[in-house]
Structure formats: structure tokens, C-alpha cells
């Protein structure tokens, strides 16, 4: 009469999942020659607080949103390099309105602007979070890629909501490509660090 109790005991007692490699470890195993053989652009992503790191391939672009996926089909979606959704990370960013951040990165939004985020709470209800953000002026910075160094401009974005303040950082090259970014996903997962490892689509 209590079919299924057995698996639940295992689930309740089980601890955290085993940790995979870190982004630094993955990076150490990569070389320009290896990346040149990749069928398309490669993104390296890490969520340090959750112990997650992986390389991702681009799975699609629609309506200005690029989606990248891991081998296990977890995905990250960006609008102009700014995170708008994650899927499969356990405490996903379900959706976001980052129009203010995108405008500020293009130097078009002086002063404070909103960043809107939505999550799932533990009972399958939408949890909304609104942040108020400001973007710093750009300063030159070099991002060390695999075998190449990219000149970029670095901008810092500070976002506040009640009881919480986070700083996101964006390294964009002259062509507008996000070479590197550190962005806050949400209270459950913390920061996401992404690095664009290869530049272009291969023919």
C-alpha cells in the first residue's frame, strides 16, 4: 500500500550531487587547435555557487535571443549577451526583461533603469523580482582567451532590490560581442560567469 516509499527514502537522505569539473579545469584542457575543430562557436559557463561548469554550443537564435546548450541539454538564453533565461539548473531564471541593461550597454540609458526577473517558487508559482540598476562608464580591459587576447570595454552594472545588491560585469569587444560576463542569475544559484571562447561560426 506504500508503493514507492523506498525511492523517496533514498532521495530524502541523499546529499548534494557530486561536483563536476570547474571552469578553470575545463579551460586547462582546451587549446586553440581543439577549438578550431568545434563545429560552431563555443561558450564556457560556470555557476560557482552551484558547482556547475560546462562548455555550451549555440542551439538557436530567434527574435534576438541566442540560446546555448550543454551536452546534457541545459540551456542559457541571452539577449545581446545579457542573460534572459536558464533551463535545467534547478532554480532557473524563468524569464527576464533586460531592455534597460541592453540599452545601457549600448550607451543609451543614462541613470537608473529596471531589470525584471521571474522564477518558480517551490510550489510552482511565479516569483517576480524587480531590480533597479545603474551602469558604469566603459573602461578598457583585456580578456585573455584561449591562445588569444581580446581588447574589450568593461562596464559594471549595480542592481538593487530590497535587502539585496549585486554587481554584474560585462566585457564587450568593439564589434559588440560579449567576450566575458559575470551576471547574477538569482538568489538560488548566484552568479553566472560566461566566456565566449571562439569568435565565429565555421563555414
Amino acid at each position, binding site marked *: 500500500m506504500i508503493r*514507492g*516509499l*523506498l525511492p523517496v527514502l533514498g532521495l530524502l537522505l541523499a546529499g548534494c550531487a557530486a561536483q563536476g569539473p570547474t571552469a578553470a579545469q575545463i579551460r586547462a584542457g582546451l587549446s586553440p587547435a581543439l577549438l578550431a575543430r568545434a563545429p560552431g562557436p563555443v561558450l564556457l559557463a560556470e555557476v560557482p555557487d552551484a558547482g556547475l561548469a560546462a562548455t555550451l554550443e549555440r542551439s*538557436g537564435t530567434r527574435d534576438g535571443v541566442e*540560446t546555448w546548450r550543454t551536452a546534457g541539454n*541545459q540551456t542559457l538564453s541571452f539577449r545581446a549577451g545579457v542573460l534572459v533565461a536558464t533551463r535545467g539548473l534547478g532554480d532557473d531564471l*524563468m524569464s527576464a526583461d533586460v531592455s534597460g541593461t541592453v540599452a545601457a550597454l549600448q550607451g543609451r540609458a543614462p541613470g537608473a533603469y529596471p531589470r*525584471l526577473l521571474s522564477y518558480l517558487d517551490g510550489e510552482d508559482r*511565479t516569483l517576480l523580482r524587480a531590480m533597479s540598476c545603474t551602469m558604469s562608464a566603459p573602461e578598457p580591459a583585456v580578456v585573455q582567451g584561449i591562445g588569444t587576447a581580446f581588447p574589450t570595454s568593461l562596464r559594471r552594472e549595480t542592481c538593487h532590490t530590497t535587502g539585496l545588491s549585486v554587481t554584474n560585469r560585462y566585457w564587450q569587444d568593439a564589434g559588440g560581442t560579449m567576450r566575458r560576463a559575470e551576471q547574477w542569475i538569482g538568489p538560488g544559484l548566484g552568479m553566472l560567469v560566461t566566456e565566449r571562447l571562439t569568435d565565429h561560426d565555421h563555414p
Partner: protein
Amino acid sequence: MRPLVLALCLACAVPPLRAEPVAWGANTYGMPGLVDMPGALPFADGDLTITSSHFADQTRHSLTFQISPRLTGSFRYAMLYGVSPGFDGNTVDFRFDRSFSLQYQIAREGRVMPALAVGLNDLLGTGFYSAEYLVATRSFGDRVRATAGIGWGRLAGVGSFDNPLAVLGDGWRTRGHSAYNDGRGGRPLADTWFRGPAALFGGVEWRPADDWLLAVEYSPDAYPGESPYVFTRNSQLNFGLRHRLNDRWTLGANYLYGSELGVQLTWGLNPGQPRHPSGTEAAPPPVRAGGDWGEEAAIARSRAALSRERITLHGLTIRGDTARVEIENTRFPAAAQAVGRAARALSGSLPAGVHTIAVTLIERGMPVSMVSLRRDDLATFEHGFDNAWDMQARARIIDPGPGTEPLPGRYPRFSWGIAPYLTPALFDPDDPLRADLGVELSADWELRPGLVLSGAMRRVVLGNLSDSTRESTSVLPHVRSDSWLYDKADLPISRLTGAWYFRPATSTWGRVTAGLLEPMFAGVSAELLWYPAGSRLALGAEIAHVVQRDHDQGFGLLDYEVTTGHASAYWDMGRGYHAQLDLGRYLAGDWGGTVTLDREFGNGWRVGAFFTLTDVSTEDFGEGAFDKGIRISIPLGWGSGQPRRDSADLTIRPVLRDGGARLDVDGRLYEVVRPANAAGLTDRWARFWR
């Protein structure tokens, strides 16, 4: 429009609502409190804790649930050795005592006034722990709390005075006999509550760091059943130390009554706060565009696209610019997530000329809900902010009524499985934990929509259920109390049935099941359910004629047969509470009703309690006086974050007797229909894009 709304929100920037203060620790009874005494602050709403506390040759195992923000309930199984259950000096070797407690917070802490709570201990048991109290707790800064209270019963053993409630009448001066002494165990003894002498208790808690807690208290409990038989009381002062190891475990040490060292361990979780609130399943398919292909190709592409999401395509027809797609969701506990994934998968597999996708959810061959979505909306909102809300506003959910259009090849279908099972018999009067572990072989043969033959056979691998020799003394027909004989079966056929699920009309569902319905009964059961789309109320009627099965759980039958049945009302009260009322005739031929009240979490967890009153007298019912218990249902994906529709269901009864016993037939319609009904869909709609 949306930026404007946001601007307003940011402008007002309301500080977060101050969370109501909650108890820092659990006492030896597993209730919020100090060491042995209660406090007036509750646990956090929904917290579920198990506390095991040991001292002086006795161990209390308590399961405590914060039923609502103010109401705390607890079930306790105490293992006592060498005590005097009648408080009269006649000791027994051991006593396994089951009891319930309730505490209600009357007032929250104010700027000056303390929090105030009233509590009842052992309100349905033998009265061994019988006590009532009124308690106040006040905070002094973030690190110190003081508690003071007045107690009756066990809490008025030392330093007692005349009951102040005697102003209400002389009857309040004396407490009367305990349930144990006059054999009234199992009933609420309201005529003893708050009666007899009273005494004061109190203490102080100090939290020097977030993970450490020290408490000192004065207890008026004289431990009349334990002292001096098991331990000596030298003092009424108790000291406690608690250390929170992590978000699940808390370790405690106590020094009690000037003579005894005790230890306790608390394990807790909040069902509303899984570690992976969005789940860990892989990403959904993206929205794609259709192409120029016909219905035949659309079916093949759709079947493949849906099977990648492990959703089964049941039917697909295209009429004009609308595709009507029937799906079977065996994977996602939130039906809205299955619909959302199916819609995205179909966006790339249906011909470009289809503008409306109508997804029908099929459960056991019956259509339950049809969700109509505009294909353009999927593309428009896939990457939008708060897009679940946008889709919910645009989706049309209806009850499609009877009739399905299964694809050729869908029926018949045969499936089978082997799975381990565990059947614990918890808190038996002779042994606290007995259990069987075994394997179950099950098979289903779906002949046509709604018509299914199924069976299950078991084999015990190890366990001690069959060791029981607790022969039934019941004067009623032994409809449940011979379970110890059924547990001795070698190769039990736990069920072997033919079932027909059907839709007689819109808003109505039907079921007829015949065969070996459950381990102890065989026969025919028929059920009708009225449950309109989106309704929070459903009504059902069920009737069955059954014959008792032989103890070996083969095909043999015993000579007891009965007609049983119930009229049922199911009410989703909102805010996570659910009530069910069943009125009718039970297996022993007794007439009566069952009341069930559940706290339900949006992720599928349920914690509830039930009781059944029938025309069987408490004397004929035997130990426990009437049937009652608590039930917990845990969705199996809750811990891992992986989507699973099955759950672990645990029912704990202080004692299982023959009165108020219900047939246990598979596929009761309310539970089959509810997740996919419009109400279930909208409750978990936030997962549409997950």
C-alpha cells in the same frame, strides 16, 4: 503598460513584510518550546519535523507539522520501560504509547504584549501525557526570549494550586480519572481538559549564535508514571542545549530534573521549499516554424517530437487551421508543463497552415481538458518577461467532453514493470517498526480507450511483517484486523482487475472495476464523479459489492461478503487546504462518515488527518475507539528535482481495526482527473515554459 507598473513598484519600494517570529527549538515532545516545556511561538508555516528524544529509559518519537501559521500538530510514539501507566505504582515492563498534541497561537507577539498560545497534549490517547496549557513568550532583542505559562494535568504535578477556572463552576476543581484507568483511550476527553489543580511553568532561552541555543526552565511535571520507578526527581529545573548542524538536522542535549542526561535529534524540512524549485529536467524544445507538409507527415513528425519529451501522442486531427492533438502525460506532475512542452514540440511538427493548437490531456483513456493555444502566441512570448502569465491569459481551457480519436496502432498496448516496494507497519502496539521489502511485478493491457486489464503480484524479499502473531480479538467481521494473516502470503496477487474508465457526459467521469480489487477483497466497484472544468468542488458516488479474499491472496474467497459505498464531496478550499467528506457504508457493514483535511503544497506534497465515525460502538470498535490517522503524500521527484508523477503515500494509524474501513480500489476518479482538470492546470501554470 508594463514599465509603468514597474515604475510604480520601484517608487513605492515597500520594505519586506516582517516575518513572524518562529520557535528556536523543539522540546522533548517535538513541539516548539524550551526543554520539556512548550513555548508560545510556532514553527515556520509548513515545517515538518521528526524529533527523537531520549532520557531515563524512554524515547519519544514525534512527527510534528505546522498545519497553518498558528496551528501546530504532533503525533507521538513513546517507548517507555518500567513505568506505571496508571500512576498508581503498578509498573509494567514496557509500554508503547501513541498520542496526539495540538497547539494554537492565540496572539502574535506585539510591541509590548507577548505571544500567547494554548495547547493540548495527548488529546486522543490513553492520557499518559494528558496536559493542557496556556503559555506566553516574549522576545528581548534578537538573542533572548522568556516564556511563562500555566498548566493543568501533568503540568500541575508540583507546586499546584486550586484551578482558577473554578470560578466557572465547582466541576472545574477536579480532573477525574485518566483514560487509562477507565478504559476510554482513543477518544477526546474534553470533560477533563483544563480541570483540576493548575501550576506555573516558565524559562528563558538564549541564542548566543545563530546555530546555538541554551535554555533553562522550571517544570511543574511530577512525572507520576516514571518517578520514582524509572528515575529520581531531585529538582524541577531543566537545562537544554541545541546545535543546528545544517538546514535539516539539529542535535540537542538535556539535563533533566536534577538527575538525568538526555539527548535528542531533530530532522526537519519544509515541503514548500524543495532544493530545486524549477526542477533539474533538461531544457524544453524551442518554438519552431512549421513547414509545408500534410497530415500524415505531421503525425509522424509530431509523434517523434513528443516522444523526445517522453509524451505519448494519442490522437491528431487537422480541421481547417486547427490541430486537435491528444496527448498522454506520464512524466510531468504539472500538467501545464506537459502542455507547454507539447505545444513547443508541435510548433515545429504541424503544417504551417495550422494556427491553433488544441492540446487534449488524456488520463486513463479519458479526455480531461483541452487547452487551445494560438501558434503565434508561442512565438511571440517564448522569450518575453513573465510569459507564463501572458500564455495563461490567452489560453482557453475547456472540458472537451466524451470521445477521443486515437491513432491507429495506439490500441491495444501491453506494458509491464518490476519495481521494489516497501510496506512498513509503523507504530504497532507490539513493535514500533515492522516492514516488508519486496519486488512487485505489474502489467497493464490497454484494449481500447479507457478499457484496461491490469494485475500485480508480489514477492517478499526480506521483512518481518509475517512474524506478527497479534490475533484479532475484534467482535466485528475481520475486514482489516486479519491483515497479519494476509501478510503471511507467499506469492500474493495484490490486484487483478478489469477496469473501464469512461465519460458519460461533459463534467462527468465514470469507472467500473471488477476482479481482485485489493489484497483483502474481490468484487465489483462502480463510481461516478461530477467535476466541472475549473471547479473547486467535486461530487462523487461509489458503490461496490465485495467478497473477502482468502489469506493467501490467491483466487480463493472467504464467506464474508458486503455491499459498501459512499457519497463523497471534495473541496479545494484554496490557500493550500483541501477537505473531503465521505458518507456511506463501510466494509464491516457499518454506516457513517469520514472527514479528511489536508494541507496541500503546490508541488504535490500533502499532509493530512482523517477520522471516521460509524454506528459501531466504541466498545465494539475496540482499542482506539474509532478510526483515525494521519497521511502524508510525498511526490517522488521532490528531492531530486526530476519530474515524476508518482508519490510515496504513507498512512499512520494509531491502531488499525475493523470499524470505518474502506475498500482500497485503484483509480478512484477524483485523483485521476484532478491534476489535468482546468483547476489543476492553472494552479501550476507557472511551469508552462519549463
